[in-house]
Every structure is written in C-alpha cells, then in structure tokens.
C-alpha cells in the first residue's frame, strides 16, 4: 500500500531536506547579522535581506511540505477505504455473520484514520530527524562544551514526548468509550421515552446518565492530569538548556571566547529543536497504533470470500430454448448437508424437487432449516455435501451475478436503502424504465400506498426520509425482487409484518405471481401456506412429508402441531 505511494514519499522527503536546510540557516544568518552587521563592520542590509529571503524560501517549503505530506496520507486513506469497502461487499454471508457491523465500520474509519495519521507524519518526521542532526552538528562545531550543556536535556524531551503520547492515549480512548456509552443511554432513553414517561421513571434515567457523565468526566480529567504532568516538563527541559547556555555562554562571551551573535543563535537553535523532538517521540506511538490498525485492516483484506463464482461459468439456457419445453425455474436439492460454521447440522441429506412454475410452501418449526433452504439456492452459503441444481445446472457452475439475478429473494427482515422508493425498487436494475417499476409495485400490492406518499415514487426513505410500516416495507421488498424477472422467487417469511387485515392484498399479489414463475414460500400462516400448489414439511433436517396443505393437515400429526396455534385464529374467525 505504502509502496504504491513511493514517488510521492520521495518528493516529500526532498522537500523536507530543503526545508531543514533553510530552517538551520536562519539562526546562522541572525548570528552573522548581529556579529558582523550590528557589532562589526559588515553590511547590516545584506544580512537583513538574506534573512528575509530565507524567510520566503522557508515559508514556501513549509507550505509544500505540509501539502505533500497530507496529500499522500489522504490518498492512502482514500484508496485503502475504497479497497476495504469493495472487499467487504464481496465477502460471503458466513463472514458477515461472524463480524459485527460496528467492528467492520471501525476498521474502515478509525483504523484507517490511524494509518493515515502515521503516513502523514512520515515525511515530516524525516525532516525533523535531519533538522535535529544538522542543528546538533552545527552547535557542536561552534562550541562543543556549550553545545553539550545545551543539548544534554533534549533527548529527554523525546522520551517524554513518547511517554506522554502513550500514557494519554488510553485515557482518550476511555473518554471515547464512555462517551459512546453515554450516547447509548441518551439514544435509548429518547427512543423509549414513552416507557420512561409512562412509568414516571425520569429519576432512574437521570441517575443512569449521571453515572455515565461521571465516567466521562473521570477519563477526561485523567487525560488532563497526564497532560499537566508532561507538557510543563517538556517545556521545562529546553528552558533549562537556555539557562545553561546563558550561564556558560555568557561567561564565554565575557572572556572573549564567543560572540554575542553565537550566543543568541544558540538560543534560537534550541527553540528550533523543541518541536521536532516532541514530534519524534509522538511518532513512535503513532507508529505503534498504526501497526495495530494496519493488522486489523489487512486481516479483512486478506480474507478470501468463501463463495466465489467459477472461472469458466456455464450460462443458463434462455427460456424456450430448453428441449423439454417445461419452462424455466426448476430447482433440485440432492442429498444436501449443511451447518452454520461449526454449529449443529441444520440439513441432513435433504432432497427436494421444485418444478418449473410451481409454488411450493416450506413449513417447519423454528430452527428446522426452512430459511436455510432460501439461503442455499442463491449461494449465500454452500452446502458441505450434496448438490443444488437450477434448470439442470449445478449452481456452483454459474457466475454468481447470473445466479443471483435468476433467484429473487425477499427476506424476513426487510432492508431498504436511504434512497427514493423508485430507486429502492429498481435496486437490482437502476436503469429499469418507470413503467416496469410501476408494474411490479402493482403486482406486490405496493402501488396504492406509494401513490399516497407525499412525493409518490420519489419519496425518500430511510434515516432522513419517510419511515414505512413493516408491511409496507415488505411489499416494497417483494416489488424489488420481482423487477429482475427472476426464474425463482423466494419469500422468506416475507408477509409476517403485514397487518392481518391487509394480508389478503399480498395474497392477491402472490396469486398473480404464482403460476408465472417458480415460487418458494416460507411461512407459518395457514392462509399463506394454503396458496401453494404443494407443501414440503421440514423436520429433522430433511423433508418429512410432502403434499397439499389440507392433505397434510388431515394425515400428519406433527404438521398439525407445528401449525396448531397459528391455525386456530382464522378458523375461529
């Protein structure tokens, strides 16, 4: 990563060298000005002009140095973040199950920021390093003993700078963590204010906040105490150097072994060294943090997606091209075994055939693996044994985008993006014509409520936009899945949040769908299940029974049990 920015770094280093040269020259010019211009017979004007000229160069190089250092660091930051995001999008469901969103976010923000901080300091540090050496050499050449006296305390500045940065860091992290906890208390209190007000428990929550506020204060004050120990000490050391220079140097001048100009230039050199020494101390701990952050970032970048398309994918035959005239969307599960990570087996030797154009309901108790079937077909996970075929082709032989376009899935938890209603429906096909978007919205029973929104299809959704009800969200998700004309549609408990009085609308929509394409419905409402041509009842990791809903109800006791509580309501009504 850093290697790719090498040319930028080299230029940065060159600028830093030039900057050092000018910075070190200025105190020398001041000395010449005093000794020859004021105290001697040299030209005062020339010395003055030289100083001002050096100021112009020093200023320009200061600007350039900053620009280059920061520019390179920001470029590294930008590229790294782009790469990380793209990589994360390509990683499989298994990876995302195991990693929290917040954790991944912090790698893409805080960690990359740490790396950026360090990269930014690299050329500056190099310049500082050279400045320290150059100034020390100049001082030693001018007057060795005085130089030793002046410089003796300075390495300590470096050490203190490093210690300070290391000690204050945990306290600053403490402030951040406690602030985050405080934010959680505030956030949930505001979100749950009806509960708080309803029970009159304002005092309880005020006390909760007081605890967090005290914690934040504790860490913030700790950070300041650390600061109060180090900052004055870091300032004291060079001041003591100045005292020593005046004590010893003053007598040297009195004895005529040194000039006043040299004495003053010693002072200025010392002032010049403080900042670089502090920074070098800080860079060490910045480097440590950047290394840790870099390890976290590259551990993600080096993770290979567990699921990838083949190098030479098979292409699904177009509808109508198939010899047997059965249409498209035939799905076969053959001897499929599956478990999540190292968990208990979910599917054991599952066999299931879904004919083209058929509507099948998958029914089973919680944890029976019905949702897993929905996740295996689009290859969100791969079975560890067995085979899944779509229109006769093993899905592992298909290109991933092609497979996922052929299978439209509607999840139980509907995730919509902060974009307009239209863009959300057109998610898979951003260029879809308006009529198509409208058509699928009508199919999914969403057109009516969309038209009633303030801006219709242009209404913004999400965090800063309009928030839809659970049922409305699900209907949008169904429209989204339909737009791509998938061969197979999977509805994973997709109507659970729909208001029962509105469910008939969805059912109308579903009936419009079914018959046109293969539909796999995962549901526990009998009314929805009854829509299917056939029911596959999952139990013990395999299909325990197959048949029509009413047949199974009549013949299978376990099936009745699983549906029991849900089945009572509509029959009562």
């Amino acid at each position, binding site marked *: 990563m850093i290697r790719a920015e090498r040319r930028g770094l080299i230029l940065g280093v060159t600028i830093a060298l030039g900057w050092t040269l000018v910075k070190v020259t200025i105190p020398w010019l001041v000395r010449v000005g005093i000794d020859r211009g004021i105290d001697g017979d040299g030209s005062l004007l020339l010395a003055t002009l030289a100083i001002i000229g050096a*100021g112009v160069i020093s200023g320009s190089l200061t600007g350039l140095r900053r620009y280059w250092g920061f520019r390179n660091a920001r470029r590294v*930051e930008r590229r790294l973040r782009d790469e990380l995001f793209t990589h994360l999008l390509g990683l499989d469901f298994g990876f995302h199950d195991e990693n929290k969103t917040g954790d991944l976010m912090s790698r893409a923000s805080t960690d990359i920021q740490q790396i950026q901080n360090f990269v930014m300091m690299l050329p500056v540090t190099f310049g500082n390093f050279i400045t320290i050496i150059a100034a020390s050499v100049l001082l030693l050449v001018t007057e060795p003993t005085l130089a030793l006296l002046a410089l003796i305390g300075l390495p300590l500045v470096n050490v203190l700078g490093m210690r300070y940065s290391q000690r204050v860091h945990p306290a600053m992290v403490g402030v951040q963590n406690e602030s985050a906890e405080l934010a959680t208390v505030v956030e949930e209190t505001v979100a749950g204010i009806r509960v708080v007000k309803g029970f009159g428990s304002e005092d309880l929550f005020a006390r909760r906040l007081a605890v967090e*506020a005290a914690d934040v204060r504790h860490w913030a004050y700790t950070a300041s105490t650390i600061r109060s120990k180090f900052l004055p000490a870091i300032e004291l050391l060079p*001041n003591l150097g100045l005292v020593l220079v005046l004590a010893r140097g003053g007598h040297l001048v009195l004895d005529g072994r040194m000039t006043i100009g040299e004495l003053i230039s010693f002072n200025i050199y010392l002032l010049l060294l403080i900042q670089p020494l502090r920074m070098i101390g800080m860079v060490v701990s910045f480097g440590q943090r950047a290394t840790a952050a870099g390890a976290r970032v590259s551990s993600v970048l080096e993770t290979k997606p567990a699921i990838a398309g083949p190098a030479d994918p098979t292409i699904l035959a177009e509808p109508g091209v198939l010899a047997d005239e059965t249409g498209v969307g035939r799905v076969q599960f053959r001897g499929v075994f599956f478990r999540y990570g190292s968990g208990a087996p979910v599917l054991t030797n599952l066999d299931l055939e879904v004919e083209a154009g058929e509507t099948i309901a998958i029914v089973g108790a919680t944890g029976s693996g019905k949702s897993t079937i929905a996740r295996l077909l689009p290859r969100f996970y791969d079975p560890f044994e067995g085979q899944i075929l779509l229109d006769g082709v093993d899905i592992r032989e298909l290109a991933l985008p092609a497979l996922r376009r052929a299978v439209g899935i509607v999840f139980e938890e509907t995730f919509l993006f902060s974009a307009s209603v239209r863009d959300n429906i057109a998610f898979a096909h951003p260029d879809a014509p308006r009529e198509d978007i409208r058509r699928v919205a009508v199919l999914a029973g969403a057109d009516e409520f969309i038209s009633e929104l303030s801006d219709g299809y242009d209404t913004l959704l999400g965090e800063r936009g309009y928030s839809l009800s659970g049922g409305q969200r699900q209907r949008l998700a169904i429209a989204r899945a339909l737009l*791509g004309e998938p061969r197979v549609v999977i509805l994973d408990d997709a109507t659970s949040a729909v208001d029962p009085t509105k469910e008939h609308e969805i059912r109308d929509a579903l009936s419009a769908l079914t018959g046109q394409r293969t539909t796999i419905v995962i549901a526990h409402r009998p009314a929805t299940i009854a829509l299917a041509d056939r029911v596959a009842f999952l139990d013990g990791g395999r299909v325990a029974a197959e048949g029509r809903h009413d047949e199974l109800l009549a013949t299978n006791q376990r099936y009745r049990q699983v549906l029991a509580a849900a089945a009572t309501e509509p029959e009562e009504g």
Partner: protein
Amino acid sequence: MAGWMQAGVDADERLDLAQTGQVLRRSARMLRPYRRRAMLAVGLLVIWTASILAGPVLVRVAIDHGIRAGEPTVLNRAVIGYLFAAISAYLSYRVGIRSLAWVGEEFLRDLRNRVFRAMLDQSPSYYDRTKAGVLVSRMTADIDSLGELMQYGLLMFISALLILTGSLITLALLNWQLLLVCLLVIPILVPASVAFKREANNAYLQVRDGIAGTLSSLQEGISGVRVIQSFAREPIEGERFGEVNGQLYRAHMRSVRAASWYLPVVDFSGVLTTGLAIGVGGVMVRSGRMSLGTVAAFVLLLANMFDPVQQLSQLFNMIQSATASLAKLFEVIDSEIEVVERVGAVELPEHGDLVIEDLAFRYGSGPPVLSGIDLTIRAGERLALVGPTGAGKSSLAKVLARLYDPESGSVRFGGVDLRQASLASLRQRIVVVPQEGFLFNGTIADNIRVANSDASDTEVELALERIGALERVLALPDGLSTEVRERGGRLSAGERQLVSLARAAIVNPAVLVLDEATSSLDPGTESIVEHAMEVLMAGRTVIVIAHRLSTAQRCDRIGVVDHGRIVEIGPHDELVSARGAYAELFAAWERGLVSP
C-alpha cells in the same frame, strides 16, 4: 498540525455579538460554584505567561548589564533569575492545566446532567415536535464538541491569547518604535488570518459532511450487504461508495490547501519580523538609540510569538462552534414543560370510574385529533378501541393516561381531574403498555425495574410469575440477569413483550392501557403472551387499542373511533347486528382471514 484543531460552524448557527454575550453570561452563571478554581486557573496561567516572557528580558539584562558592562555578578544574577522563571513556569503551568481542566470537566458534567434532566422532564408532546436525532445530537455531538474544546482547545486558546498579548506588551515596553516597525507584518498577517479562518471553516464543514456521508454509506453497505449480494449489485455499490469517499478526499484536500498557503504566510511573517528586528534594530543600536540586548530580546520574543497567531486563527472557529453548541443546549434547558404537576396536587383514589367529558384534543397547533368525546369506563370494565389508522385511538389512550393534556373537556378518575393529580400517583394508577415491548440496555430485572426502581428481586420474580412468564425467563442462560443487549436484541419479540407486561404487573395499576402489537409472533410464544395479557387484565379497568378483531371480540364493549370521534360503542354482538361501521370492519376482516 493534526486534525483535531479543525472546527467550524454553519453560517446560520453562528451567533452574533449579543447572543454570544448572552451565552457567556449564562455560562458564567453555571460556573459560579467553581469560580474560585476558575480564577486560580487563570491566575496561574498569567503567572506562567509572565515567567515565559521573563526569559528573553533576562537575556537582555545579561547582555547589556552583564556581558557588555563586564559585570559577571549581574550575568550570574540574570542566570539565577532565568532559572527561577523556568521553575515558576513549570509549576504554574502544571497546576494551571489541572485547575482549568477540573473546572472545565465539572462544568461539562453539570451541563450534561442538566440538559438530560430537562429532556426527561419534557412532556411527550415535546418529543413529537423534536426529532429524536436532534435530541440525541444535543447530548452527544454538541456536548462532545465542547468536550474537545475542554480537552485541547481552551488551554491552548487561553495560553495563546496570553502569550500574544504578553509578548506585545513586553515588546512595547522594550522599545515601542521597533515594535511598530515589526508590526508592518500586520497588513500581510491579518487579512491572511481572516481569509484562512473563513476558508478553514468552510473546508471543515465540507469535511464534516464528508465524514458523515462516508460513515452512513459504510453503515448502509455493510448492514445491507446481504441484500446487495442477493441482487448482484456489488459493482454499483462499490462505485457509489467510491464517489462518497472521493468527496471526503476532496474536502480534506480543500482543508489541506487552505493550511498550505496560510502556514507559509505565518512562517514568513515570523522570519520577516526577525529580519526587521535585526536590520532596523541594528541601525538603532549603531546610532546608540538602543542596546544590543534589546535586539536579542526582540529576536527571542518574536520566535515564540507566531505559533500562537496561527493557533488562534484555527481556535477561533472552535470557540465559535462551541458557543453555538452552548446556545442550543441552553435552549433545551430553558424549554417550557407542558404537562406539569399543579401546586397542591392530590393523590388519585385507588379505584374508580374513568369519566371523559366533552373531550377535545390536538397535537400542538395541528388539526383537531379528538373532539366531543363523552365516555364513562366503569371500574373493572374492558373497552376495546378499534378503527382505521389515524382515527385517534392511540391519541385517546394517551390523553387518558395524561401523557398529554386535553385542549378542552376533562378526564377524571374516581372523581379527580387528572390535571389535579400528583404525577407519581397518576403513573401508579394508570399504566400504558406500548405496542412492542421497548427494552433498554441492561438485564431483564433492570428492565422490569424501569417501572419501579425500588422493587426487590423477589418482587420482580413475583411480577413475572403472576403473568406466567417466570419459567420462560429462568430458562434463559442467566435468568433474570440475562443482558438483553441493545433494544433487547437478544430476546425474541415475544419475550420482549413479556418483559413489557411484567413492568405493568409490578406497578399493579387500577387502569391498564394496552396497545396491541401489530406483527404476529411465532405460535408458541403468542399463546404465552396472550395468557400473560389475560392475567394482567383480570380485575382491572382495561382500555385496549385492538388491531385484531379477535381481541376486540373478547372485550365488554367496543368503541369504534373514526375521525376523532366515537362513532359506535357497545358489545360485539350488538354492534354486529346493528350493521354499522363495526359490522363492516368485521366482515372485511373475516374475509381476509379465511382461506380461499
């Protein structure tokens, strides 16, 4: 140097002088308890400044009266003076930083507690008017930006200001003519600083938006990764993120460019004044109007004066943003509260009828939501409220629990107007159980104690047992001490509702207002929740906002709410045979549930 000095404020949030004055006076009032520490801190920092500035002045004495005059004793005295100045600077700075931080952090803690308390005391109507995000950002973004100011900015601001003023005064005392010459840099430095301050502010605002944009894209991309993959949309999302990320980069670069032309100006100004001090000062020394020591003192003082200039130009934005934040926070503290306890409020009786007379209600100055409602709910009666979304069912329930005050008319419980009742007794007698159980971070027991913070473990268990949920909770890995995580994420929807019902059980209210959940639960849990509700309702007055007509059917009476009025009321069978609005609703609902 680093990014932390960046700050900025939107043009429409920037305060004018009068407003700033108000904010400062208000802050001073809040600082009153700590004013001795605050004065100590400022006093110490003044001593620190004087000690720092004493150095170059002592160098002048050493050169003019020691070295030039050939007096080693004077030189030695100056050296000893310098040593004392250095030690005094060390000590005063050390204690000064601590005192300032102490005052600042105490002030912030006090502010956090006060703002939050003010929010808690607000009526629900306030939360309707104000977006949750805004309230949260007051307590986080706004106070945190003040926190950052306390951490780095304030000390630096005060130090820089003191050093700058102190240096100017010292230089003027040393030789005001030479100072005037050095001040020739003002025409360069001041316009540059003003321009930079503005540009840095604008760049910062762009960076802030860029960061927010990047973070929300990241969040959306990562949490929506499953949907993105399902629709094979990775390339488009990658590109879109690249654009947002690129915007952040450009904003950063704008800020880098601003600093990259401004820092050279400051740097050059510093060297220019040194040159002028040597050149013009040199001429004055040669003509005998000034001593060489004074030139030396000038050079040394000037070397320390330009860092503060550059710091101040950036810190100014930080201070402006902080005062804008403070103004917003004081506004929260000063907001008026609508539902308040009257002076001389009385306890509500333990039992009684709920009597609603000619009730009208609206949210703020919005359209009327309820009007002309007359209704008596007898003690122990169960009333269901049904009707289309937005008809006013939930509003009626909220007014019944005095989460809002009616616009006109009254609600009385056992003969006492709710507005005359003490809030504590009101919350004790009438409890609202919201739709979906809302859970806070903490254990299950903590969550039940939200209803009664003094409840013992036994009382909590008893409440769960009474509604038949104890077994279910004890089956969890840590039982009552199970951490529910954010929003109760570790529990199922049904378990969350059980906790919510247990809260009501522990209060043991006379009146229960239930807002039925719309989404269905898995069948097993559904029956436990229904059982818990049944137990909870027994022996109390119940008002249930029903979404399922099967629930309504089981109530003594059903009120149909439409357009803010009760259009029909009576038992289920009566309403069905009356063939009115309810009969229609019921027929539609039945059609929806029967298998085709």
